[in-house]
């Protein structure tokens, strides 16, 4: 294995843990993370999208510009403007935002991992 730059394949999966607040129900974010970890999918898990936005993290721009992405986080309006505030506006056609504050974990998993097989 060589430490090379990432070559993205669609759709990317981004999971926000919202680790610094208690607004996303634990049972939902735990269940979604459990499903992601049990799947065969590559994914990115971040402690807090808000923190990345405040840092103007360059990785947000890469996510916004590199094709389809599914984001498990909070309210879509908040997520879109967090990306925008970081100078990384999401493409509405490519980004699907799943709201762990409102939706059931099963529904989110169905959306984010359609027809994927579990690994290990």
């Amino acid at each position, binding site marked *: 294995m060589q430490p*090379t730059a990432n*070559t993205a394949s669609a759709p990317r999966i981004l999971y926000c843990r919202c680790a610094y607040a208690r607004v996303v129900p634990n049972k939902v974010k735990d269940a979604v993370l459990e499903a992601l970890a049990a799947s065969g999918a590559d994914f990115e*898990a971040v402690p807090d999208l808000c*923190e990345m936005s405040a840092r103007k993290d360059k990785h947000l721009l890469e996510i916004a510009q590199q094709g389809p992405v599914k984001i498990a986080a909070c309210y879509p309006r908040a*997520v879109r*403007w967090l990306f925008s505030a970081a100078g990384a506006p999401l493409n509405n056609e490519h980004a699907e935002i799943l709201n762990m504050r409102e939706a059931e974990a099963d529904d989110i998993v169905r959306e984010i991992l359609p027809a994927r097989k579990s*690994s290990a």
Partner: protein
Amino acid sequence: MSNSATLTRPILRVAIYEGKGADPLEAGSRLALIRSLLEKGYRVTRVTGASTAAQPGDNSLAVLGRFTDAQPEEAIDDTGAVKVYFRNIEGREPEEAAALVDEIRSDAGVPEPGGWKPWFPVIDYDRCTNCMQCLSFCLFDVYGVAGDGKIQVRNQDNCKTDCPACSRVCPDVAILFPKYRHGPIHGGEVNADDMRREAMKVDISALLGGDIYQALRDRSAKAKSRFSKERDEDRALKERMRCLNKLQKDLDIPAEVLSSLPSLDEIQAKAEAAKSKADAVIASSGGD
């Protein structure tokens, strides 16, 4: 450490590598490791492809895996910009593997992640009319004006944790706090009821007994009067406390914020500076 330092410091990202040259982790171990790393404040990428997923903005990357091939302890990625640390976690419990990342971070001189609750306003520019009320209202210099004359959130780390007051004075429901408990401030969609409430929104000027700027100027002028100063002190203090208590209740402002407010003179100076800036922007845009 100041929050500004928090926002600019380098980070260590973690990749859990399960591609060619490594055995996959057992699902339970993978989950426990990822959860542990997230709770410590690390960003984690699970990788099964041929890459370690070095990303823009990375300074350091820790790659954990059950490697079947020998890996160097350290390497530089092919962009030359990211230092990569490989660690074989074969036979290690998830907590031990997470502790390895702490060791790498410490050895690399990367600060511990976390330590700041990311609480700050986010502007919904689909709704914002650039009225500058937030700029005029905020006493902590969170807002600024961009080169194109647009209001912007400039100093996120100046914002007072759990204080959503500026969102409540926004007449267009354009200010979000994603970690707030209730909608639409938390980013939920704005509905007709929300807009009706906006029409009855707290009038800050009324709360403070009229034009806030004029009131502050009047108070300052009175303070200069030899005889009125003593007479007015008690009354001004009571009035201020009454207004602050009402603000605290109506705007959901934490007590800590009120206790850290600038002095009256500083408030006056800030308010006048913000008003001048806002007036200039509004005038230059033709009052739209």
